[in-house]
């Protein structure tokens, strides 16, 4: 939207009245978002149970995040979820979008509507649906039984080895449509003569993909990764509704630990510390992805 020559300087004329227009929005934002964020940083330096007087703790809460086995594991799980929420959908999306982009097919609009639908459904509803699919007497197990693989059936969300990938797969399902739609839009903007030139050079479908399609959608890939990686880091509802971090602590994630430490264990300072770390990580990741995306695009 930027890039017009007259917008090189700041827009518009100098007007004091600007403060008045900004004030109401800024006030609500400052009181209910910015101030709580500063408070979180402040509280992260205390040991506080939320009831009695807190005691100064310095950086010991941060130390605990780094050393406590369960908390460290939660960040590791977030990393695993990034594979399921971001990496797999990116590969799936690239593959699907590239195939669909090669030929004009009918019904693409309908397809877009359908595959984007998961994005607008409340995560609680999605969790209710997938809990049914994974249940001991659920969809997956009855399919396995009906094709004679009864020995493979299990409570998918209840077993140590399977719970985290099972939750991750919900994320793959949730994000793949979004990524595909995003990449399809990006590929739609590639000038056709780029392909004609590649074909004159005798490029096949695969070389065409790596030489023309992939470089042209770098910007979209950066956007897709930003959206999905952040979504992977903010999976509170899904964990709360499917596994509550269990079995053991095999599926707990930082955003769930914030809730658990503050409201189930009364470790308010530690909960704020996890929240602050989560914020820093989210900012760092989106900064890096947009920077790398920009540089590659130049």
């Amino acid at each position, binding site marked *: 939207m930027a890039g017009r020559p007259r917008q090189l300087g700041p827009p518009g004329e100098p*007007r004091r009245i600007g403060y008045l227009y*900004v004030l109401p929005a800024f006030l*609500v934002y400052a009181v209910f978002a910015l101030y709580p964020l500063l408070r979180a940083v402040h509280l992260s330096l205390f040991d506080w149970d939320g009831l009695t007087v807190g005691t100064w703790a310095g950086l010991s809460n941060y130390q605990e995040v780094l050393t406590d086995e369960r908390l460290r594991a939660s960040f590791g799980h977030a990393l695993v979820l990034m594979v399921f929420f971001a990496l797999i959908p990116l590969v799936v999306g690239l593959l699907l979008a590239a195939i669909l982009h090669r030929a004009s097919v009918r019904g693409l609009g309908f397809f877009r509507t359908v595959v984007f639908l998961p994005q607008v459904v409340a*995560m609680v509803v999605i969790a209710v649906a997938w809990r049914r699919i994974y249940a001991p007497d659920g969809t997956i197990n009855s399919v396995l039984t009906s094709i004679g693989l009864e020995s493979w059936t299990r409570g998918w969300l209840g077993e140590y080895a399977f719970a985290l990938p099972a939750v991750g797969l919900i994320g793959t399902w949730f994000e*793949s449509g979004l990524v595909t739609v995003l990449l399809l839009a990006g590929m739609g903007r590639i000038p056709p003569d780029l392909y004609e030139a590649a074909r004159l050079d005798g490029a096949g479908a695969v070389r065409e993909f790596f030489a023309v399609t992939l470089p042209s959608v770098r910007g979209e890939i950066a956007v897709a990764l930003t959206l999905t990686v952040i979504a992977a880091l903010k999976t509170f509802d899904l964990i709360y*509704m499917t596994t509550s971090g269990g079995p053991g602590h095999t599926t707990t994630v930082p955003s769930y630990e914030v809730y658990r430490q503050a409201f189930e264990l009364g470790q308010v300072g530690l909960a*704020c510390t996890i929240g602050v770390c989560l914020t820093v990580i989210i900012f760092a990741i*989106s900064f890096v992805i947009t920077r790398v995306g920009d540089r590659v695009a130049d």
Partner: protein
Amino acid sequence: MRVSPSERTLNYVILTAFAVFAIWPILSIVVAGLQPDAEAPGGVGNLTQAWEIGRFGSYLRTSVLVSAFVVTVSTVLSVLAGFAFGTMRFRGADALFYLMLIGIMMPAEAIVVPLFFDLRAIGLTDTFWAIALPQVAQSVAFGTFWLRAAFRSSPRSLVEAARLDGASTGRILWQVLVPLARPAIVTLVVLTFMWTWNEFLIPLVMIPTNEALRTAPLGLGFFSGQYTQGYALLAAGATIVALPVVIVYLFLQRHFIAGMLEGAVKD
């Protein structure tokens, strides 16, 4: 591009398979919500049964009130702030804007804990305001960013002409710029509605005891924990919770898709 008939057929197979994969869990819950079981009569009767047993009428009422408040207030505030940031120059404008930009990525997880204890100290937890105002703050951050870009790209000559005609600043905003920015505002309204309707963590934390103030997703969360007799009523409740946003999506899907994809891109 020209491709062989077999590749075209393959495309349709892939399209269909992926569409089925995407919609199947959602359809399965709608279908399950219409099945009869011990507690459920089956068909549409399940929805009314869930409405009563699961108290979804009350949850939906709260969700409608919260969404209406958050959407209205945050849209108006975002129009005002986006107008100033997009068309005026004043000292510190950039700093203020970047400060608000932080709010777009700030996770609710980070602020919900201090917010709860501060609001509890002044007796505001378990109230409408505790659910609504933090969400206004988050929506206003995105809305200001979104509408600043929209107002910035509106033709400056139009504003200058209106000013030469003696129109006041407020008139220029509401009668010249807002009508021009209508598509962007509609996108903002549907996105804010969806985010507010689907929000789970903020109502969960802010409404520890007051059952009458549970929103629809929160009510579903509690219902799924307490009601374990059968799946039909739970699925019917889930359908009720999802339906309002899905209906709006089916009518305004371009706005949803464009907003969610472009909203992530810096201008």
